[in-house]
């Protein structure tokens, strides 16, 4: 059994905490960690403890004034006057004590994953706390304060001059990362998401293809609401190998938000756990075929923290660490016993979902997604 993977994990990740009623809750990482242990998929030597990102590292992407403000805001209980201008103190990104440190730990975790992979300590690494893809250079957005994905890509560019393929399968468009590298032909950003017609952030149209030298190096697949597994995977599996062959990346960074699931309260893509088995499987295969295995995965969205996130990211780690789980495997009783009393929702009894009721107009949605895919790759590097 290959043990070439690292999980970046610390219970301190839960310090990134807005308030009890906020949908973004890193408690999901505790549930995930415990489920991995219950399945006996984790050994002590698999785990790396995250470090804090330095200001210099954050400044690869973020405005120093913004970093300074986040630090100051985290030292007080009052919301400072300038907060709203920085996207903070809003309903989406409320302020909290020590927010700079909590956010820097998440970025540091992703950088640690990068270091482990690029220095050859491991082939793959997964930082489930990362994936905060909405944050901008000088502004918090969509639950995200610092953008660990963008910082990691800039760090890969700076220290290894690597060509980076970024694949974002969160149900929301990966806008922060896209705009950060919009004119860079060495970073190919790919986002599959629910169409922005209704959903936040509203961007991610097929026509957003990059700018200047980077034209063609942003690819967006806005999927229709109620896309479901088969159409989602058809598009993903057609798209990714073409882009990998055309772009020839040195390393793959995947953002593995799991909010496309039918149980997710914020989105409408209606996928099941099957996609969270298949998404990392293809990324893993591509990394071995084209990038000498170099694959870094981060978390992302996922707002059903009880029923979806622990299972989805367990599947990711199972794929990454070559420890496959059977399709009919049950959820360990010990995990259910531990967490059921704290959840208002009935926890699932199996790793995979029973089929959900079919959505009317499935054929039409499938067809529309195919057309979207064709449009999306018109000017992209494909091979």
């Amino acid at each position, binding site marked *: 059994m290959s043990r070439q993977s690292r999980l970046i994990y610390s219970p301190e990740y839960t310090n990134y905490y807005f308030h009890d009623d906020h*949908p973004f809750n890193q408690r999901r990482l505790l549930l995930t960690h415990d489920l991995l242990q219950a399945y006996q998929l984790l050994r002590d030597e698999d785990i790396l403890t995250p470090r804090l990102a330095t200001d210099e590292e954050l400044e690869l992407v973020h405005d120093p004034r913004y970093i300074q403000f986040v630090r100051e805001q985290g030292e007080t209980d009052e919301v400072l006057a300038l907060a709203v201008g920085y996207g903070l103190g*809003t*309903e*989406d990104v409320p302020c909290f004590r020590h927010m700079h440190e909590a956010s820097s730990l998440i970025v540091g975790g992703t950088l640690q994953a990068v270091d482990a992979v690029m220095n050859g300590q491991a082939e793959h690494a997964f930082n489930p706390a990362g994936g905060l893809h*909405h944050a901008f250079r000088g502004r918090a*957005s*969509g*639950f995200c304060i610092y953008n660990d994905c963008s910082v990691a890509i800039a760090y890969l560019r700076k220290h290894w001059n690597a060509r980076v393929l970024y694949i974002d399968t969160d149900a*929301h468009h990966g*806008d922060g990362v896209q705009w950060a590298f919009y004119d860079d032909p060495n970073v190919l950003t790919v986002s599959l998401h629910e*169409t*922005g*017609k*209704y*959903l*936040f*952030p*509203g*961007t991610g149209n097929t026509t957003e293809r990059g700018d200047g030298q980077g034209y063609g190096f942003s690819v967006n697949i806005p999927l*229709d*609401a*109620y896309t479901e597994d088969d159409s989602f995977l058809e598009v993903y599996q057609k798209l990714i190998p073409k882009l990998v062959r055309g772009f020839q990346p040195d390393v793959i960074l995947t953002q593995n938000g799991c909010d496309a699931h039918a149980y997710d*309260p*914020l989105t*409408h893509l209606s996928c099941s756990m099957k996609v969270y088995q298949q998404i990392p499987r293809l990324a893993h295969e591509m990394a071995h075929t084209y990038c000498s295995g170099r694959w870094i995965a981060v978390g992302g969205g996922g707002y059903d923290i009880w029923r979806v996130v622990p299972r989805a990211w367990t599947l990711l780690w199972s794929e990454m660490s070559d420890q496959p789980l059977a399709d009919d495997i049950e959820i360990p009783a010990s995990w259910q016993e531990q967490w059921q009393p704290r959840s208002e929702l009935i926890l699932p009894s199996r790793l995979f979902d029973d089929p959900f009721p079919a*959505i*009317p*107009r499935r054929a*039409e*949605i499938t067809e*529309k997604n195919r057309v979207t895919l064709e449009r999306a790759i018109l000017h992209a590097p494909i091979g």
Partner: protein
Amino acid sequence: MRIEDIMRKNLVTASPATTIGEALLLLRLNRIRHLPILENEQLVGLVSDRDLRDALPSSLITRDDDDAILHKPVSEIMHTQVITAHPLEFIEDAAVQIYENKIGSLPVVEGTRLVGMITESDLFNSLIELFGVNKPSSHIEVEVDDRAGMLAEVSQVFRDAKVNVCSVVVYPGKKIGTKSLVFRVQTMDPRNLLHLLHERGFTVIGPTNGGVGS
């Protein structure tokens, strides 16, 4: 919003003596389609890429006088009756002018001095900004009766939900006697807002009935 807020101020211009060949090059290099012609800083004419192309012979035949055409001055083909706008007019006035006259741009003139240009693309760009599409936001569409006070009632819900609105557009409704209010709101989690809207009896058009998947 006024024209002076969105007009282009870095202008590429030519004089009546500029040759057709030079004018073509100016348009190509600057990726523009309209060239105002100035004489002593006064606007005296306008040529578009179409006017210049009309002046050229067909690309399918070769003729000896091609070169002669490229060396002729633009004064021979420029429009001298130019429809212009004033910087203090509203952008919707510019849209009406461009639409009704079926033209592609308006030179913006203060007195007789050219101060800017506004084109179809600038208006489209403003439309994108007005709809708030360029800001991270969720889209909320509410169908209401076409009577006084509805917008205020709906807005009250946004206020109660403490959600910041980036843009509001009012459309005629699909049914007679209704209007569609389309808001772009700065939140990734509109659940509470949607709940409040439902609770107060408003009809919200969501992806279930607004998109393909109905």
